[in-house]
């Protein structure tokens, strides 16, 4: 059986694991480097040694590069925005309410053209080819090579978006077009924002994918490179170049799925404690539960399908203060734990120092925290547990205690039980759960469409969507025996005539590997 390598490129560390089926063979943590390749190549070189390198069948990479680019407003390419919907929608033009620094980065070139649909699929106004040619000329003259196209009600009917995209591609050879019906759901501004972000990452996506492939090559691996998406499935490097925004929340997703594998569970709460924050999510049926509404990325409202994560400012590096009252976090020493924490001879009291003083962890020199008052240590740790318990409670969907899995390098700060949790497990390799999660990402197939129930039954509509989703998963490389349905959603569109229904089917399967 072929081996797999999972990689998590974080802000501070790059983690890599070598997996034999579901077993961790080797793991490594190295500092993340400024360039894409060096850190990853180093990590790959250390987990896949001379004897194993030839047996690696796939490299799965999760990265925060694209999220960070948007959050930090850098490395984004100039992007034009075309909305199809005039004369409707003009009261809220594209990029309304975007932070100025992001608009500055991508340029303020927006166009609202005629077209789009009403809720019942009647056209708002006819598409005007000459109008779109004029827009194309303006984009071409400005030298902009990326465009986001969003049509009103395109999640119900996407033909206009596709037609406009192909016209722009014809008029401006080489332009990169992102269309909204492939990226988001109903909610025009949020879907448009997501599409613009995706388009603005086109150049960076080329660079990153090239860099990742290079790193894999440098490490002597010949296996294909995959990237992990928000929903815990994989996309090829070429697909990632088209949908970089689909990686925005792959970090939390990988950590939740990695925790599931390491603890051997399919339903639980996952608590991931890092240096600065604790991220809490819900594992349901082997996948993270998705957020239902608006998710902000870099100060911009979007409606990406992302895991529902509650983040609180508590981690291993959280600073403990007693004045004016006892607090732990949200300030943290972050990646400088080994310089600033008391157990390493520093002068800052951190959550990790408390854990060492209480005998819950062996890190640094315990003698350096021996002076801490026992009662104080207990009170401080109780405060940490109380805050985590409150956050856990807010992600539950019903009353009663639940099982939880604890992962992450900062997880030493939790010792005993947490209120509201019946069973708390910290599995082996919990500190590389993220990379483990990347390595077990599967391939997916999804169908999301509106069907009319005038000429077919509800059952046959769902059945044909299932068959098509399965086919897409197989085409993406899924092993036939492993393909299973993870989600079937039927949304009756009560306000549409002709008894319409929206069907969304998601299937996943294990990636077939060649050795």
């Amino acid at each position, binding site marked *: 059986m072929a081996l797999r390598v999972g990689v998590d490129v974080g802000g501070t560390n790059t983690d890599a694991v070598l997996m034999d089926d579901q077993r961790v063979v080797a793991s490594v943590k190295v500092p993340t480097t400024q360039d894409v390749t060096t850190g990853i190549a180093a990590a790959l070189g250390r987990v896949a040694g001379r004897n194993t390198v030839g047996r690696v069948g796939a490299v799965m990479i999760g990265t925060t590069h694209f999220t960070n680019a948007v959050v930090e407003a850098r490395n984004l390419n100039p992007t034009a925005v075309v909305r199809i919907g005039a004369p409707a929608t*003009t*009261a809220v033009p594209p990029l*309304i309410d975007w932070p100025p620094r992001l608009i500055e980065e991508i340029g303020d070139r927006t166009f609202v053209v005629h077209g789009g649909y009403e809720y019942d699929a009647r056209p708002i106004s006819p598409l005007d080819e000459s109008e779109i040619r004029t827009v194309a000329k303006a984009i071409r003259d400005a030298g902009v090579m990326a465009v986001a196209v969003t049509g009103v009600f395109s999640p119900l009917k996407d033909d206009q978006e596709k037609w406009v995209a192909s016209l722009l591609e014809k008029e401006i050879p080489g332009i990169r077009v992102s269309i909204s019906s492939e990226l988001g759901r109903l909610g025009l*501004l949020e879907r448009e924002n997501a599409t613009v972000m995706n388009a603005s990452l086109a150049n960076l996506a080329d660079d990153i994918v090239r860099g990742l492939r290079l790193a894999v090559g440098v490490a002597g691996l010949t296996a294909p490179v995959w990237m992990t998406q928000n929903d815990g499935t994989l996309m090829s490097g070429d697909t990632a170049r088209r949908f970089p925004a689909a990686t925005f929340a792959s970090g939390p997703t990988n950590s939740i799925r990695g925790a599931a594998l390491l603890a051997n569970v399919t339903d639980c709460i996952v608590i991931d404690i890092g240096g600065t924050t604790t991220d809490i999510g819900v594992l349901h049926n082997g996948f993270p539960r998705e957020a239902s*509404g608006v998710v902000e990325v870099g100060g911009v409202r979007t409606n990406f399908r992302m895991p529902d994560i509650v983040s609180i400012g508590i981690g291993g590096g959280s600073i403990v203060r007693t004045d004016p009252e006892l607090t732990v976090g949200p300030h943290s020493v972050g990646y400088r734990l080994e310089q600033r924490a008391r157990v390493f001879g520093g002068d800052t009291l951190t959550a990790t120092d408390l854990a060492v003083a209480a005998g819950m962890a062996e890190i640094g020199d315990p003698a350096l925290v021996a002076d801490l008052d026992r009662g104080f240590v207990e009170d401080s740790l109780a405060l940490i547990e109380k805050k985590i318990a409150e956050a856990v409670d807010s992600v539950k969907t019903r009353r009663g205690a639940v099982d939880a899995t604890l992962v992450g390098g900062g997880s030493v700060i939790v010792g005993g039980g947490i209120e509201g949790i019946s069973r708390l497990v910290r599995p082996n390799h919990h500190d590389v759960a993220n990379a483990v999660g990347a390595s077990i990402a599967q391939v997916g197939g999804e169908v999301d469409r509106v069907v009319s129930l005038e000429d077919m039954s509800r059952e046959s509509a769902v059945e044909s969507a299932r068959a098509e989703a399965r086919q897409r998963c197989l085409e993406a490389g899924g092993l036939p025996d492993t393909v299973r349905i993870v989600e079937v959603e039927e949304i009756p569109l009560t306000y549409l005539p002709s008894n319409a229904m929206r069907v969304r089917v998601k299937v996943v399967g294990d990636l077939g590997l060649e050795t």
Partner: protein
Amino acid sequence: MRTIDHGQVRALGLGAALLGSGGGGDPYLGELMARRALADSGPIVVVEPEEVVDDALVVMTGMMGAPTVLVERPPGVLGQLQALRALSGHLGEEATHVTCVEIGGMNSTLPLIAAARTGLPLVDADGMGRAFPELQMVVPTLHGISAGPMAIADDKGNTVIVDADDNRQIEEEARSVCIGMGASAFIALYPMTGAQVKQSMIPGTLSMAQAAGEALLAAKASGVDPIEAVLGQVGGRHVFAGKVVSVSRKTEAGFAKGEFIIEGSGGYFGSEMAIAFQNENLVARHDGRVVVSVPDLISVVDEETGRPITTEEIRYGYRVAVLGIPCDQRWLSPAGLELVGPRYFGYETEYEPIDNGSRRER
């Protein structure tokens, strides 16, 4: 007389969300549009009802339709004045002022756009003192003032004039025109004289919403308890606090109906509150006993920040405070309670006044 500029729209939207008592549509979109219109036009003029001359022509402006459609198909700029113009054309007389149908939710900020684009003064008042789902649910109806003639416009240049003897009939006719126009449309209605405004509108509600929003924003900045700060502006009291432990929903006859249950914490430990909603929160029961009911306002806010939470958003785990805010006393007549009391919405309970002692004088 005073002015409002685009920088003050945020506070107004926030206060309007609170007075929306869980409904009234997402104020975000209304806020965006109003901010933009006022940034273009400069400050708009706001007048008290007392400042309006008796023979003025005052018109309510806003939108009606399905909130879910509106978020996918926001309106065009062109439609924003169409309904008002069509109504003036039909009446053969230009409006002299605009005002608000409701102060809760999105329709509180939309009249600012009409004022910005026409230069007309905005009257600091509304017809409900909160949000309600239907057009006849305004105090002017109790005074025999007709919603018609009413103009409905889309953003493609289409307008329809609706009129009838009865305001509920006008609501029904307008609803079907609105669906034909794409389930979201601009409206201009309740043409009134200045004298009728003074007689029937609830005065000062725009200022109240703005003050409530400003109190929330200021409390956030200065570390004051936001809930106390808000209650100081709108009257009423804190009736419960705790954690949402269940939410049930169903869609029935175009309404998002349901109920959520809050388990008490702090001083309310060991008891629970059930809140029934239809778009808006309508009846709150503390351990089975009705403590707040429509037309009084039931506003559910984040326990820590005071941020208003809509009935669409509410879910398990939210830590909330429940505020009971007295409605305007004009609703408390038998005719008022027949129009908007608990029985109209299908609840077999009598109206239970929240606390007459704290009812705000207006």
